[in-house]
């Protein structure tokens, strides 16, 4: 980028120097006059070029829009007919040759709308017209935006396409390209693909994981049996935190046999993250005791996570601990404890009322807030 910028700048200043040395300085002896004349000449030329470029851009955009408006309905109609089992390949091939960009867009649009047999036919059409090869090539080489677009087109096709290429792209350094490739791989029904993507994305930027969280959800149960325990065993805290965060985002009941091990982890961040998973632990796992223990922890981070979990358990045995934190915890802890109490039914509400009347300024304010929230119609729809 720096090189390109330097080249553009040089191509602006060099002609100024060239005109000055080679032309204007021979005509006029005054240095300022020669410099000003050459500078003004180049500037005027550049401004004129910019104006012409702007006009050309506008013209091209308008022409593109007009052509698209004219051709698109015809293309969609013919493609829809083909998807429904009619239409002629020769006619579509001619249209593709004549309007390649519009054809691409129309096919992409239709692929996103149809499923089943129609999608299979359109996929076959894309292969026959060699569009799949073009998209695969573009996904590897073109600028970032086009690469992502090509990957999205590939993702719309029926069946699997570009398996090995996708694994390579999933390892490239551009987060959005990685995410697009991983998304396609995650859609594969094969468990090993999902596990491979999971182990890859826990080491990738947060953006990739955010984009993939939904896609990985369908594999949640299997990943909790294979990939997640592997991360727990790996000992890499950063990867483990990312993996636990992904698991939490699925919001699904899961078997989490490694929770006991995580509760004894030396990192408070890992313990806190694991506590946030406890509300999703499948029945039969006695996780309430972890929350109870964590509420008495020295780490505020762990206590805050335990309070969020306590709100989900609504267990009467936790009430004394919640009350203690609500009346003596720091600002954020008191607030969370009051919010958790609000979720604990009449007993929790009773404690909040008591805090409102008898507590100090901070507990009273937090209790008032929690009571007001509990009275709102949307209460309980969102996790605390």
């Amino acid at each position: 980028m720096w090189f390109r910028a330097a080249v553009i700048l040089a191509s602006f200043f060099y002609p100024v120097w060239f005109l000055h040395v080679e032309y204007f300085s021979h005509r006029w002896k005054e240095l300022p006059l020669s410099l000003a004349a050459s500078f003004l000449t180049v500037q005027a030329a550049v401004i004129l070029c910019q104006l012409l470029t702007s006009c050309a851009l506008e013209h091209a955009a308008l022409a593109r829009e007009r052509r698209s408006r004219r051709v698109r309905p015809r293309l969609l109609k013919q493609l829809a007919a083909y998807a429904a089992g009619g239409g002629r390949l020769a006619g579509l091939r001619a249209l593709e040759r004549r309007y390649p960009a519009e054809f691409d867009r129309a096919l992409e649009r239709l692929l996103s709308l149809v499923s089943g047999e129609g999608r299979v036919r359109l996929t076959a059409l894309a292969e026959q017209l060699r569009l799949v090869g073009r998209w695969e090539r573009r996904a590897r080489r073109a600028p970032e935006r086009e690469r992502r677009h090509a990957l999205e087109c590939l993702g719309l096709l029926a069946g699997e396409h570009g398996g090995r290429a996708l694994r390579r792209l999933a390892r490239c350094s551009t987060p959005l390209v990685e995410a697009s490739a991983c998304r396609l791989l995650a859609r594969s029904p094969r468990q090993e693909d999902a596990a491979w993507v999971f182990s890859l994305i826990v080491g990738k930027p947060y953006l990739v994981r955010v984009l993939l969280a939904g896609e990985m959800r369908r594999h949640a149960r299997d990943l909790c049996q294979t990939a997640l325990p592997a991360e727990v065993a790996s000992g890499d805290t950063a990867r483990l935190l990312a993996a636990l965060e992904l698991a939490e985002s699925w919001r699904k009941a899961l078997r989490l046999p490694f929770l006991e091990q995580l509760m004894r982890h030396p990192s408070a961040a890992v313990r806190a993250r694991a506590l946030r998973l406890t509300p999703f632990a499948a029945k039969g796992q006695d996780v309430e005791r972890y929350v109870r223990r964590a509420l008495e922890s020295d780490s505020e981070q762990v206590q805050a996570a335990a309070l969020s979990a306590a709100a989900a358990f609504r267990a009467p045995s936790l009430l004394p601990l919640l009350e203690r934190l609500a009346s003596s915890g720091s600002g954020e802890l008191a607030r969370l404890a009051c919010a958790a109490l609000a979720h604990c039914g009449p007993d929790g509400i009773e404690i909040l009322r008591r805090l409102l009347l008898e507590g100090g300024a901070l507990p009273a304010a937090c209790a008032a807030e929690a009571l007001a929230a509990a009275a709102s119609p949307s209460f309980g729809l969102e996790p605390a």
Partner: protein
Amino acid sequence: MTWETLDILVHRFYFFVEGAIILYVFVINSIYLALTVMALVSMRRHHAPFSRAEREALMRSPMMPAISIIVPSYNEAKSVEQSVSGMLKLDYPDYEVIVVNDGSKDATLQVLIEAFHLYKSARAPIGTLATKPVRRVYESSDPVRLVVVDKQNGGKADAINAGINMASSPLVMVVDSDSIIDRAGLLEMVKPYLEDPERVVAVGGTVRAVNDCEVRDGRVVRITTSSSMVANFQAVEYMRAFYGGRVGFSLLNCLLIISGAFGLFKREAVLEAGGFEHSTVGEDMELIVRLHHHYLDRQQPYRIVYLADPVCWTEVPQTLKILQRQRRRWQRGTVESLWRHREMLFNPRFKLVGMFAFPYFLFFEMFGPAVELLGYVLTVLGLVFRIIAPEIGLLFFSVSIVFGVLLSTSAVLLEELTTLRYPSWRDSLKLFAAAILENLGFRQLLTWWRVQGLWEGLKGKRGGWGIMERRGFKTAAPPAARASG
């Protein structure tokens, strides 16, 4: 000493000063050009907004960080309903809007209460920033996440701090109450944070003039240039400032300003730095400089990023009187921010910020207008009294005015090459005309106001909320009504 010797001395001195000014103006404009070229190259390569599929994935993702949009508001009864309506309809999975009414003297609070069916809430502030007392907190009974904080008047920075205290999200966005954010603006704005959540502490977006654009339901539905040339001049000026300066500085991680009208911050970072500063009129710039100061001092890695994609539309002044006040205020803000953090100047501890961005802002942004004005005055006087030759005047004209035109047209072209937001020929030509004409009188006027601002800043004049005469947004009729009418 004879008259002749004195005459020679005056000529030589004049020639020296004029030469120095020409060199100064040439250097400043060359730096602008270099930054614009860097922006062009970078934006052509990295301009990649989220695709539809990515936007959908983000909207569904439970891992998206929550955002609190803080809208400080003072006497904004005319536009607050439309802009808050727009803010409540953004594409983002988890956000709340916190409007802070800073003791408005008009009906701002009443408008909000009626429009959004507010009720008195028990929500308590959780932040610890010192602010003027909060009178009451309201929440909306509609199915929207809107909080209104009514507090005693304390200035814009105080209002933002009150909003930060009330915010519970890890990210806070500060938006002016006369502004409209693009529907996908929030998703785009959060992108750098998602890419690097550990280091990114602030993200700035682009601010554009909304004057005469059509607005429906709090959204800009038709982008057009204004019928007022003053607004168009500012539209071009904003393009030049945002594309030219900020992209380049952001690439070097030494951006010293994120517009107070549209900025996203990590809440924890702002709290750690002490929040927005009450005693300056340039609280937006001051906070960014302070964040640099804070992190570089502690040698902690951080990033402050500018993005060209997310756009916030704001009403720009259409009268010279209001514009003059605004520009004097901005210049005062620059002076105050730089003065407060003067220890950063040429201090290698502050890396590129101390060695490049700070000196650049001091010598070119702060004192630039004074030198430029001196250049105009000396050139005109020199030509009138025949102290300098006409060719020197021509050289000054080429390096200041024509170079300025080139920078403005480059910014307009950059806009067209990357986003092509203005869809018609007429608008493009109007922008190009504005880019040329703004350098023939308007820029000189701005220079004069900025010199006044510089003087006020050096004298230490204080200020509160900027006064802006609101015209309100130009509303578009709904499509059906339009077709029938």
